C-alpha cells in the first residue's frame, strides 16, 4: 500500500535548540568521580555476607553457627529461627528474611554474617553448618500446577501464587463469526535487567534517627515501607539515602529486599554499619529477573483483517517467591489487548511457584513479553489472509477517543502516524529482496491510576535559594534516563530561568517528597507535571513577594524581574527579602498533581492512566540460511511520547531500550539446569555488545498531550516493547518459518528451516 506522509512533524536526529540540556551530574560520572554504591564505605563499617542454599528444595534440619561465631573478626551471625520475623512481600507476603524451615531455590537465604572484612565474612559463611533434607523439586511451571507436584508453600495450595480469569465482550461469538483463526504457543524465558552495577547496601542503625539504608533505588519510599514492616520499625525511623545508581531498568524498583533487610538486621545486631555487596554471580542466581511465560494465544479475524476477538491461556513462572510477579502477570495478560480495537477477549492467567530464582520486574513490565505473542499472531493472520501486515495494523490500531476492551480511555494518539512513519522509513514499499521485514506496535500507560487508587499522582517542591538559584525537591529518581535534566527544563520553562540555575534533589527520603517511584513510565508525565505546578506556584509567590517589596506589579524574563516603573530585581534579592521578613524561610512553591479518580472497577475494567504513549517499530534484517543466524540491520523506532522535552536524552532512551529489546529478542534469557541457573555470568548471559546492534533510527511523532508537562508523555519503557514483535516478524518473513520460543537463536531458526525435531 502507499504510505501517507504523517501530518505531524517527525524529527530524526533532533538536536532542537535548547532541548539538549544535560544535568551536570554527568560530569561527575564521566570523570569517575561519582560515588556509586560499590564505591561507598562508612567509618567502622562491617562486611556482610549471605549463606545461600545449595539445594532447590530442602527442609532445614539444623543450622549450626558455633564455629562461625567463634571466628575472630565476626561481629554478628543471623539465622532464620532466631529472627521470629513475619512474612513480608511486595504483591504477596510469602518471604522471610532468612529461611526457617525450608529452602525453595538454589540461592535461598539461610544465614547472614557481618565481619570486620570480606574475607572473614566469607570464611564465617563457610564455617556455618547446615543440615538439609532434600525434597522433590519442580522447575516447570505447568508441571508445578499439576496435581501431585511438589508443594512450595503450605498456604498456596497447588503452587498457584495468583490467577485470574477474565472475559470481556463476547469472545465465543467472535470465534464463531471468524473467517480465520490463528493460534500459537509462545515461550519467553526469564530476563534479567543486568544493570551493570551489582546491588549493594550499607545499613546504619542510629539510636536517634533509626535505620538509614545507603542504597540506590528506583522506588525508595516503597522499599522503606517494606523494610520498616520487616524490622517492625516505625516508618519515620527508616530512611533511604541513595548513592549514584549504576543502572536500574525496573530491577531497582524494589531491588533486592533481602539485602536491605539483612544488612539492617546485621547493623542492629552488631551496632555497626554493615555493607552487603552482591557479586555478579549472586545478582544472577539470587537476583530478581522478570518472570518467564508460556502464552497460548488465538485470534479471530474477519477476511478483511478486522480483529474480532482473542483468547489466551497464560502460565507465568514465579520462581520460589512472588516479588511483583502477580502484577507483572496481570499487565502481561491484558495490556496488549488495548493497542488494537478488539471487541472481545477471554484470558486465563496462572502464576505458578517453582523451585527457581524468585522473580521481579524489568523495564516494560511484561508488555514486551506479550508483544511477542500478539504481534506474531497479527502477522500470521495477515499472511493467512493475504493482507499487508501494515494495512492490517492500520485497520485495527486504536485511535484518539477510543475506549479499549479493558476500559482504557485513549486520549491523544499518534499510533497510526507512528506506523506510517516507521514503515516509510524502513522502506516498506520497496523492500530489498531476500531481506526480512517486520512491524510491531505498542501502547504504554503513563503512571497508574489504579496501583493505589487513593494515591495517583506526584508532588514536588521548588525552593528559591538565597543566591537566586532554584532547588527542586522530588521523589523521582534519575539514574541516567534524564529525568532530572528534563525536570530542570520543565521548571526553567515555567519560571523563565535557565535550566542550569536549577538543582534537583531526590536521593534522601528524609527531605524528598514521597514518590511511587521510577516505574510505570510515570516520571515525565506525572512527576514532571508536579514539577511544572511547583515551579508555577513558586513563580506566583515570587511575583507576590516582589510586588510587596516594590509596591508595584512585576513580570519576569530571563531570570530577572521587571517592575512597571522599570526597576529590575534579581531573584536573589527577592529571596533575601522573603527570608528576612519570615526570619529565615525560603520562598517555596508546592506542586501537587492529583489526577481524577478512575472508573476502574472490581473486575479491573476502567481507565488506568492519565495518558498513554504509543510506538511502532519496523525492522529490516538478513538471514544466513546456512546457519540460521539473523543480522538485524536496521530498526526504525517511531514514538508518540507527546512533545519531547529533551531530544538528546530521548534518543538515548530509544537507543538503549531498543538495544535491550534486541538482547531479549536475539540473545538473552536465564537458562536453568535442574533449578540451577546455568548462565550466571555476563559472558553467558549475553546482553548485546556494540557489535551486536543494528542501526537505530528514532522518529518522534510529537503530538502534544494536554495532561503532561508542556504536552509531553513518557518514553522510557515503551521503547523496548515493540522490538520483540518486530524482530520476530522480520525473522519469520526472512526464514519462512516462525520461531515462537525466545530468544531467536540461529540454532532455533536453522532447526525450524531444516525441519528438525526440537532437541536438547
Amino acid at each position: 500500500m502507499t504510505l501517507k506522509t504523517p501530518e505531524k512533524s517527525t524529527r530524526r536526529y533532533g538536536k532542537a535548540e535548547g532541548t539538549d540540556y544535560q544535568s551536570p551530574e554527568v560530569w561527575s560520572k564521566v570523570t569517575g568521580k561519582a560515588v556509586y554504591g560499590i564505591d561507598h564505605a562508612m567509618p567502622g563499617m562491617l562486611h556482610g555476607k549471605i549463606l545461600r542454599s545449595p539445594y532447590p528444595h530442602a527442609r532445614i534440619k539444623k543450622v549450626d553457627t558455633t564455629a562461625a561465631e567463634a571466628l575472630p573478626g565476626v561481629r554478628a551471625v543471623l539465622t532464620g529461627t532466631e529472627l521470629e520475623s513475619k512474612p513480608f512481600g511486595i504483591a504477596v507476603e510469602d518471604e522471610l528474611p532468612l529461611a526457617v524451615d525450608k529452602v525453595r531455590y538454589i540461592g535461598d537465604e539461610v544465614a547472614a554474617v557481618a565481619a570486620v572484612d570480606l574475607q572473614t565474612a566469607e570464611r564465617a559463611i563457610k564455617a556455618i553448618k547446615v543440615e538439609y533434607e532434600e525434597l522433590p523439586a519442580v522447575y516447570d511451571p505447568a508441571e508445578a500446577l499439576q496435581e501431585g507436584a511438589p508443594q512450595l508453600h503450605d498456604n498456596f495450595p497447588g503452587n498457584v501464587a495468583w490467577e485470574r480469569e477474565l472475559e470481556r465482550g463476547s469472545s465465543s461469538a467472535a470465534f464463531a463469526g471468524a473467517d480465520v483463526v490463528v493460534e500459537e504457543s509462545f515461550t519467553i524465558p526469564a530476563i534479567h535487567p543486568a544493570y551493570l552495577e551489582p546491588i549493594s547496601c550499607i545499613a546504619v542503625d542510629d539510636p536517634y534517627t533509626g535505620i538509614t539504608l545507603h542504597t540506590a533505588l528506583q522506588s525508595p519510599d516503597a522499599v522503606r515501607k517494606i523494610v520498616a514492616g520487616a524490622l517492625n520499625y516505625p516508618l519515620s525511623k527508616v530512611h533511604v539515602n541513595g548513592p549514584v545508581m549504576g543502572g536500574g531498568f525496573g530491577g531497582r524498583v524494589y531491588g533486592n529486599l533481602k539485602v536491605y533487610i539483612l544488612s539492617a538486621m546485621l547493623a542492629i545486631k552488631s551496632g555497626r554499619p554493615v555493607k552487603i555487596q552482591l557479586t555478579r554471580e549472586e545478582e544472577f542466581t539470587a537476583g530478581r529477573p522478570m518472570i518467564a511465560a508460556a502464552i497460548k494465544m488465538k485470534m479471530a479475524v474477519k477476511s478483511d483483517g478486522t480483529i474480532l476477538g482473542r483468547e489466551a491461556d497464560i502460565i507465568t513462572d514465579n520462581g520460589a517467591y512472588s516479588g511483583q510477579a502477580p502484577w507483572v502477570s496481570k499487565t502481561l495478560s491484558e495490556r496488549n489487548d488495548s493497542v488494537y480495537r478488539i471487541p472481545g477477549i477471554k484470558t486465563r492467567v496462572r502464576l505458578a511457584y517453582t523451585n527457581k530464582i524468585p522473580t521481579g520486574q524489568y523495564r516494560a513490565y511484561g508488555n514486551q513479553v506479550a508483544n511477542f505473542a500478539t504481534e506474531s499472531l497479527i502477522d500470521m493472520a495477515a499472511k493467512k489472509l493475504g493482507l499487508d501486515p501494515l494495512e492490517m495494523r492500520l485497520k485495527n490500531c486504536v485511535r484518539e477517543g477510543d475506549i479499549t476492551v479493558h476500559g482504557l480511555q485513549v486520549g491523544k494518539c499518534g499510533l497510526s502516524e507512528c506506523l506510517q512513519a516507521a514503515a516509510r522509513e524502513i522502506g516498506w514499499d520497496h523492500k530489498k529482496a531476500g531481506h526480512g521485514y517486520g512491524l510491531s506496535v505498542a501502547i504504554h500507560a503513563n503512571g497508574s491510576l489504579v496501583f493505589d487508587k487513593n494515591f495517583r499522582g506526584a508532588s514536588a517542591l521548588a525552593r528559591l535559594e538565597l543566591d537566586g538559584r532554584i532547588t527542586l525537591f522530588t521523589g523521582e529518581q534519575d539514574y541516567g534516563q534524564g529525568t532530572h535534566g528534563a525536570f530542570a527544563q520543565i521548571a526553567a520553562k515555567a519560571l523563565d530561568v535557565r535550566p542550569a540555575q536549577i538543582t534537583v534533589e531526590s536521593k534522601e527520603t528524609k527531605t524528598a517528597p514521597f514518590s511511587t517511584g521510577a516505574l510505570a513510565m510515570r516520571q515525565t508525565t506525572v512527576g514532571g507535571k508536579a514539577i511544572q505546578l511547583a515551579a508555577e506556584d513558586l513563580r506566583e509567590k515570587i511575583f507576590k513577594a516582589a510586588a510587596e517589596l516594590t509596591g508595584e506589579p512585576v513580570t519576569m524574563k530571563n531570570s530577572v524581574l521587571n517592575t512597571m516603573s522599570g526597576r529590575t530585581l534579581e531573584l536573589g534579592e527577592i529571596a533575601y527579602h522573603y527570608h528576612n521578613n519570615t526570619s529565615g524561610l525560603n520562598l517555596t512553591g508546592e506542586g501537587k498533581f492529583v489526577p481524577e479518580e478512575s472508573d476502574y472497577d472490581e473486575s479491573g475494567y476502567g481507565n488506568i492512566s492519565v495518558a498513554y504513549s504509543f510506538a511502532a517499530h519496523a525492522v529490516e534484517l538478513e538471514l544466513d540460511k546456512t546457519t540460521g543466524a539473523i543480522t538485524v540491520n536496521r530498526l526504525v523506532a517511531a514514538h508518540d511520547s507527546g512533545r519531547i522535552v529533551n531530544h538528546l536524552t530521548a534518543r538515548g532512551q530509544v537507543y538503549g531500550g531498543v538495544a535491550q529489546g534486541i538482547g531479549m529478542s536475539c540473545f538473552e534469557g536465564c537458562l536453568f539446569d535442574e533449578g540451577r541457573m546455568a548462565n550466571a555470568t555476563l559472558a553467558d548471559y549475553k546482553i548485546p555488545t556494540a557489535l551486536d546492534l543494528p542501526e537505530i533510527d528514532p522518529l518522534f511523532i510529537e503530538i502534544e498531550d494536554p495532561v503532561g508537562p508542556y504536552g509531553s508523555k513518557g518514553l522510557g519503557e515503551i521503547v523496548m516493547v515493540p522490538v520483540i514483535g518486530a524482530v520476530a516478524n522480520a525473522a519469520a518473513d526472512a526464514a519462512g518459518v516462525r520461531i515462537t520460543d525466545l530468544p531467536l537463536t540461529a540454532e532455533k531458526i536453522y532447526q525450524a528451516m531444516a525441519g528438525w525435531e526440537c532437541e536438547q
Partner: protein
Amino acid sequence: MNNLKKQVLIFQLNGEPVEIFADPAESLLTVLREKLGLYGTKAGCGKGECGACTVLLDDRAVNSCLVPAGKVQGRKVETIENLSQGGKVHMIQEEFVEKGAVQCGFCSPGMVMSAYALLKENPQPNPEQVKVAISGNLCRCSGYKQIEEAILSAAERLKN
C-alpha cells in the same frame, strides 16, 4: 622465590611513580580501588566480562580485574583519574557529555579509557573500528550509539 605474601611494587601511575606493598596476586583493580583510593575504575563482574574496570597498561586497554598486581611492576598504568586532573576534562569526556553518551555512568570510566586507548593508537578510526574498540565494554543503558558518536566526534576534534 620467597615466602612473603606481599612484595614491593613500583610502577608509573597516572604520570607519577608509586611504590606500594601489596599481594602481587591481588588484581590491579583491587589495588587501585582499595590500596590507592582510585574509585573511578569500576568493578562490574571481576571476570573480564564487562569492561567497567578498563585501564591502560603501557598505553593499551586492559581489564584491571584480570591483571595480577605483580604484572605492573616497572610498567605504566593510567586510570580515568588521569584524564581530568587539575580541574580540566579530557576532550573525549567533553564529547561524551555533549553527545549524551552518559546515562547511568557506571560503564563510562571504562568506556572512556577504551576510547582513549583507541585514539592514542588510531587517531582517525572509522565507525567499525570504534565499535570493535568498545566491544569489550558492556553498557546496558545507551545502546552504544551516542558513545560511538562521541568517540568519532573526539577523533574529528583531534584532526583540527
